[in-house]
């Protein structure tokens, strides 16, 4: 357990890892609770309240997440911004990445939202139950061909990914190609219907499509069905270690030491519950003393909005998410997003455009600049706009250098002397938000 001081910087880091960053005053309030109180408040958040104005698109219309293209992303972003249950919401994002389902293969925003609600309701609960519910979730049944897997014509897709990505991991000797084929047989029986204009509907289990014969999975034989397939995975001796390491990795960028890993596994094995594992993770010194993590793009944006008390007032966020490498409901593949590689020259530009989108409606008008100002003053104002984020000395110096250089260009021309400070302040707001300091936490 972390025994160091739990002050605003620690509370802020906790809010970034276990949520979407602090709103003004939030880190201070959390720090007052102390580590134990802070972690408990995140793990037991009570009923959700959505704080702040309702979201809308660029034309001021209410979002239509089940229907309008891109509104699904904006709807969820809004929830991240306004929720009073940041950890539950962050875990919803974790499950979306863990059981990564893309609407590109599902073709129904409505079904994706149903799955999203499933992730949210299991956010901090039983992983076993989550796996069972995901296995019969319509979006997942479509995405990994669960409804095309029948007695007469097995389809291995879900069986393989369930073991490789969801519960056991590849290259660990946990399962064989034969297990994949046998698990596919156990999972047979899910069906649905399709109608023009309605799409896929009536997802149900059809006993006559199920292969009721004996299967041999992990060297055990039985007339296994789909629930057995799930339980075989979570009771596999190599499941707990897979689960805790993967979950840990969402919060802390360096692997747990052996003692910690043993504690995590023991906590998990007691009931396959998520909350006790998270409790260890969130109280671990590595979270507070260890290296920083790159914020996922959607966390970066949600955090900036929370920081200035702004809401979702644009439907551009979906394509901006896409440019930044994270469009919600469209993970790149069934393994989810690659948290090790959020930033490159292309996705950096996506984040830059995200900041543009926040600043566009808040830009200062240079024509209204009235007085000259020095670099330090302008930088102070720009930082105040973002609610005074902590910057490294080097970044602070680089920003100051830019402000000096740009203001010096004004020379002795009066209009430049009054307008350039405003241009520079706008530019500083942009640069601050894309600095390494604000892209990581």
């Amino acid at each position, binding site marked *: 357990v972390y025994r160091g001081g739990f002050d605003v910087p620690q509370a802020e880091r906790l809010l970034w890892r276990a949520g979407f960053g602090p709103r003004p005053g939030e880190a201070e309030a959390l720090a007052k609770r102390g580590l134990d109180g802070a972690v408990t408040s995140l793990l037991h958040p009570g009923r959700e309240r959505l704080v702040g104005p309702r979201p809308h698109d660029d034309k001021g219309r209410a979002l239509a997440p089940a229907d309008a293209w891109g509104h699904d992303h904006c709807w969820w972003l809004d929830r991240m911004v306004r929720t009073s249950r940041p950890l539950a919401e962050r875990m919803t994002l974790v499950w979306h990445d863990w059981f990564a389902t893309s609407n*590109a293969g599902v073709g129904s925003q409505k079904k994706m939202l149903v799955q999203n609600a499933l992730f949210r309701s299991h956010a901090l609960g039983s992983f076993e139950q989550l796996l069972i519910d995901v296995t019969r979730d319509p979006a997942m049944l479509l995405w990994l061909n669960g409804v*095309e897997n029948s007695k007469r014509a097995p389809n291995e897709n879900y069986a393989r990914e369930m073991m490789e990505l969801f519960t056991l991991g*590849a290259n660990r000797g946990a399962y064989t190609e034969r297990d994949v084929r046998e698990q596919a047989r156990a999972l047979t029986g899910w069906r649905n219907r399709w109608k023009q204009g309605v799409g896929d509907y009536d997802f149900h289990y059809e006993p006559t499509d199920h292969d009721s014969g004996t299967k041999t999975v992990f060297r055990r034989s039985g007339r296994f069905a789909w629930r057995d397939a799930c339980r075989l995975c979570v009771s596999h001796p190599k499941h707990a270690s897979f689960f805790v390491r993967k979950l840990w990795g969402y919060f802390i960028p360096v692997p747990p030491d052996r003692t910690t890993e043993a504690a995590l596994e023991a906590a998990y094995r007691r009931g396959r519950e998520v909350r006790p594992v998270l409790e260890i993770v969130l109280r671990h010194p590595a979270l507070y003393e260890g290296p920083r993590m790159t914020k996922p793009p959607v966390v970066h944006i949600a955090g900036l909005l929370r920081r200035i008390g702004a809401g979702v007032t644009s439907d551009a966020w979906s394509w901006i998410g896409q440019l930044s490498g994270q469009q919600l409901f469209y993970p790149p593949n069934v393994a989810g997003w690659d948290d090790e590689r959020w930033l490159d020259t292309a996705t950096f530009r996506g984040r830059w455009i995200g900041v543009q989108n926040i600043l566009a409606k808040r830009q200062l008008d240079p024509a209204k600049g009235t007085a000259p100002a020095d670099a330090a003053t302008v930088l102070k104002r720009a930082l105040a706009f973002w609610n005074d984020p902590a910057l490294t000395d080097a*970044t602070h110096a680089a920003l100051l250098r830019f402000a000096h250089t740009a203001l010096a260009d004004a020379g002795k021309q009066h209009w430049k002397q009054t307008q350039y400070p405003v241009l520079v302040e706008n530019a500083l707001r942009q640069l601050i938000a894309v600095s390494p300091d604000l892209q990581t936490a």
Partner: protein
Amino acid sequence: MSRIVCDECSRADVLRAVAGRGLPSIEPGMPTPAGTGLSRRAFVAKSLGLALSVYGVGKLGLFEEGIASAASGAQGPILVSVFLQGGADALSMLYPEGDPLYRKLRPRLAVSGGSAFAEDDRLRWHPALSPLAELHGEGKVTVLPSVGYDHPDQSHFTSRHFWEVGATDPRLLTGWMGRYLDAAGTPDNPLQGLSLTGSLQPTLATAKVPVAAIDGPDEYDFWAPGVWGEVETHMLEAIGSLGSAGSRDPAFRTASNVARQVDTLRRQLAPFGGKNAIAPAVQYPKGDSFPRRLAGLAAMVSAGLPLRCVALEATGEYDTHAGQASALAPALTTTAQSLFAFQRDLEARGVADRVLTLVWTEFGRRARENGSGGTDHGAAGTGFLIGSRVSGHAVGEFPGLANGLDDDGNLKATADFRSVYASLLEQWLGFDAERVIPGAARFARPRLVR
């Protein structure tokens, strides 16, 4: 309704910008994606110092500097990697109509109506690949009818990783092109390894030198609301200074480093910012990012930008567990037409001799179709080498369905992807394959280039 889902190749075309992410490294046992982890840190640490020394060069702007270093490298060969994501079906691309077992294994999915493959009378080209058949007739396509490796892995992520790192090693962190660039590239030129997919392709992951990812060369502009004129110029120049901050923290350093690469790249690509800066010499297929990116690439090659290795993903979703017939044809059509246009564009611009394109996929698919009108994961797949200087003769042969399937019912490999890489390094890039491909000596060196 047909569906093809399961994995990385299940995105609509409009959502292509998220392409190119490798596998997550957190899952225990999964291969760590090339470009992550420790060597990434080493890369950041090392290039920080190197890049700083570059900034001290003086009055010469970085763009001019890029061009200057291009002057030495501009006539050098360029290797392009095109990835068919999801495991494209070998038995459809060049389908064995002459094999008596074909229709038995593929009662619903057997392809028909394609033109003959001149090198093997058992095989025919998928009708959608007729543009490649035409280039093959001109001697500009080398076919790999059954390329893979021993003990094939049927996981998308693992098999793709093997191809990306150029070894059957789950732990290797650098891409095979990345290791070539580390050895042959320079510390100041991100364009030497270019992902044209909107994010970094693991094949290009380096340990030392910088590489870049962009959506397209004409889409790399930066501006900010309420900022213009001289102040804007200074702001853009300041992006790189956010990156010179330096820190012992790996994530912070990565963010700094990317900011610096953004700065260099923005200057290198500045000439492509205007409208009509990319004027293709030929018609490319419309409405898809792959042909648009190839058109941009042809313009960059012809402008003499210092490119060495480029990675893209082809149009389409190849993980055809269901509804294969209706999904495969349009994907292959756009892919083949785009590659054809790219070749013709390069020819018209007079730079076709400098570009060689490798088309690959992580595995082929199961010989016997499944019950969903699709096919499950298989082993050996089809590859192509395209360019004016390829040998034009197939490497490895189609093994036949009677004796050419392994115990899982998957096509056996008759050519190893590492021997293809080794030959490309030596014959095309003029570089010692031993320095890039682990155990390169063990692999044959088929003649790929003339």
